[in-house]
Each structure stands twice: as C-alpha cells, then as structure tokens.
C-alpha cells in the first residue's frame, strides 16, 4: 500500500507493507538515524517524533503513519549547521558510541518544544525511555540542560 507522510517537512509517498513496522520502512527509505535496537520497545534507539510526540518506531506499524508528520534527526540539523541540541551533546561530551544519541536528541526535543526551561527532574523523566550503555546519563542530562540554556528566547 502507499503511505503518504510528511518526513522532516517534506511530503513523501512510500510503498509499504501494511503489516511491517514503521522502523523498517523508515530505514529502507534511508532514514538511518532511526536505529534498530531491541525491536520491542525497551531501548528507545528508534525514537522518532510523530506529530511532535516522542514514540517508538518499532512499536508502530507503517500503516499508522498515514497522514502524519514525522521528525527524525536528519530533519534537525546538518554537520555545518547543527541543531543546538546536537551542538550541546558534542560540547558536553554526551556522545560516546552514538547509537542511542538520535533517540536521546528527539526525546529531548519533544521536551524542549513543550517545556523550554526544564529542570533536571523533567529532563530525567523525558529521557526515561532511552537507554545508553556507554556513558551513563550524567553528561546527556547536562547536554539537554545546556541546550535549553542556549536556546532560551
């Protein structure tokens, strides 16, 4: 079936099997920042924003994306012009192997879109579904707080 979906601001038409996961569709279409981790909703590496809310791409069927708006990390910034969250992750040393980073950044973006000046507790809560097995979480939380500070209106 055809899926009509807006990905990172561009309207797209994808050919998909209705019963496949949105994760498999997005990766096939080249959105490789959406990581294939546990594939059962635990790790958060496949986190995307669906209509602005953080969700698991592995726990959605491709058909559910019809008519929706998706944001992946490819839509946030580029190497030349990183999003403030991406720059803050680099500056705070919050990236080690990098596998969890896209999911972390999208969960953080959903938080900052709703709560531009979060406290540490709110950051921890917003990232509670994203696992990191390298750095621990301290620098990741610092990075989100740093980005919030830099983005303040």
């Amino acid at each position, binding site marked *: *079936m055809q899926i009509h979906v807006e990905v990172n601001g561009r309207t797209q038409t994808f050919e998909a099997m209705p019963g496949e*996961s949105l994760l498999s569709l997005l990766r096939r279409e080249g959105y490789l920042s959406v990581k294939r981790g546990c594939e059962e909703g635990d790790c958060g590496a496949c986190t995307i924003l669906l209509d602005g809310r*953080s969700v698991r791409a592995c726990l959605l*069927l491709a*058909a559910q994306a019809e008519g929706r708006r998706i944001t992946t990390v490819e839509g946030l910034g580029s190497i030349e012009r990183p999003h403030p969250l991406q720059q803050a992750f680099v500056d705070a040393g919050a990236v080690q192997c990098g596998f969890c980073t896209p999911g972390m950044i999208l969960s953080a973006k959903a938080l900052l879109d709703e709560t531009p000046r979060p406290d540490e507790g709110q950051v921890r809560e917003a990232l*509670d579904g994203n696992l990191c097995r390298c750095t621990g979480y301290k620098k990741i939380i610092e990075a989100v707080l740093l980005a919030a500070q830099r983005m303040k209106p």
Partner: protein
Amino acid sequence: MLPNAKTCHYPRTPAEAIRILKDSGPRALILAGGTTAALSSDPKVEVLLDITRLGHDGIQAAGRGFRIGCNARLQEVASFAPLRSFCTGLVAQAAGAVGSRPIRNAATVGGNAVQVFRWSDPPVAWLAMNARFEIEGPAGARTVSADEFYARHPRQALDGAELVLGVHLESPEGPHAGAFSKLARTAFDLAMVDVAVLLSGSRKSCQEARIAIGATRTLPWRATRAEERLRGKPLSAEALAEAARLTREDTQTAADARTSKEHRLHMVEVMVRRTLERAAAELR
C-alpha cells in the same frame, strides 16, 4: 510484522469502524496506539483498522468525574492536571506507571483497557474506581461497569465487532481519597504487584473501601473480604493491617520470570497495607 496484512482502513466514525469489523471478522485487527499490534505476527490478520481518527480522543469533566475518550493517550491521562488531583491522583498515577514516555505517548486508554495483560497498570485503577466503559457495536450502545468488564477477559466479553469508545469515572459522594502503588524492578519494568485503593468517609468511620490488585493473576481483581473488613469501621492501623492480611490470603498467584510466589504474596500484604495507609492519611 503481520505477514498477511493486506490493507488498512482509517474509519472516521464508530459506525464505519463497526461495519468493517463486522465484515472482516477474525481477519481484522484494531490499531489504536499499536504498541501491542506491532509486535504481533498473527498470520490470521489481513485487515488493519486504525481507529485513531474517529474522534473520542479527549478528556472531559462530567458530573463528579470525567469521561476519557478511548483514543486519549496514557501520557495525557498521566499529565492532565485535573486528573492528577482527582481521587488523590489515583488514575493519573496508574496511567503514568506504564512503560516509558514514548510508550505512554502511543498507547491509548481504550487499547490498554481491552488488551489488558496481567501486568497492566491502568485496569487496576479502573477497577478501584469502578469505572464504566462505554461500548458500541452492531447491536447498539451499552455501558459496562469495570467489575463486569474485568470479570473475564474483555476481548471475550466484547462481541467481535464492538468498540470501547470511552471510560467514565465518578468520585464517591462526600469525602474520599485514593492511592496507587506499583512494585517493579525498574521504573519501566512490568509490575510484579499493583495495588489501587479508593476509600470514602472518614478515618473514624470508613463508608466504602475498594481495593484492587493487579499483576498477581490473569486479570485484576478486588479484595472483597478486605473491603468488607473496613466498611463502616474506623481506619485504625490494626484494621488496615488486617485488611492487608485478608488480601494476601485471597491472592491467587504463581512464580514467574520476575519473582517467586512467596515474594509476591508477601509484597501484596505489604503494599496493600501501605497503600491503604496513604489513602487513609488523606481522610479526616
């Protein structure tokens, strides 16, 4: 991956959804949040039905309580300010106890209520609140109390083409307080024991007590002997401890991958006592 799914419908009204369900029979699978469907590989499923576009997605104040649409997300229930204080936040806490935020952002109230796994948290709150489920199907609309809804598995209780469209909550008349507790190994692990209680009256004289237990057997259940022990009596420390002991006696459970039968029984007693204490402390 649902290997044989060929098509997906996006009904705009409950009537349209019910018609497709009726026509497709067991070949149809309803998608709401999709968090369970996405992990299924059921070869019978050929027709998908995304019901998230037929409305019923808000939370409205109604009488002494609220109507929560079936398509409201668990995260909305957990963070909706009026629900965080309604019955001492009992329902909001149970919704917030599910998984992690991205799962609560997807999973819906209706899907969670019908799917009900042994460890599901919100159904324990629906039972303590004696919520009413608004159901629509080919034969019309009906309303079912949580006691009845969870007497057997809702998927068996619902006619194949029926939909849950909303959950109605009403607080008891007069002073009341609720409390919810979850025992799990980590913040987003599945529950080993869930307890939800709702008390009304005063500490000197309890009018009604509802005590619901989750994760000990297939469906959530009410500790009716413990409830009777408290009804019309003072909520003394001894009374709460005895209600907890009675609940433990009435608990049917078994060991699983997470914990032993003995540990779970012990924790039922501890958690019922503590949860009752928390609710009782809110009463005058």
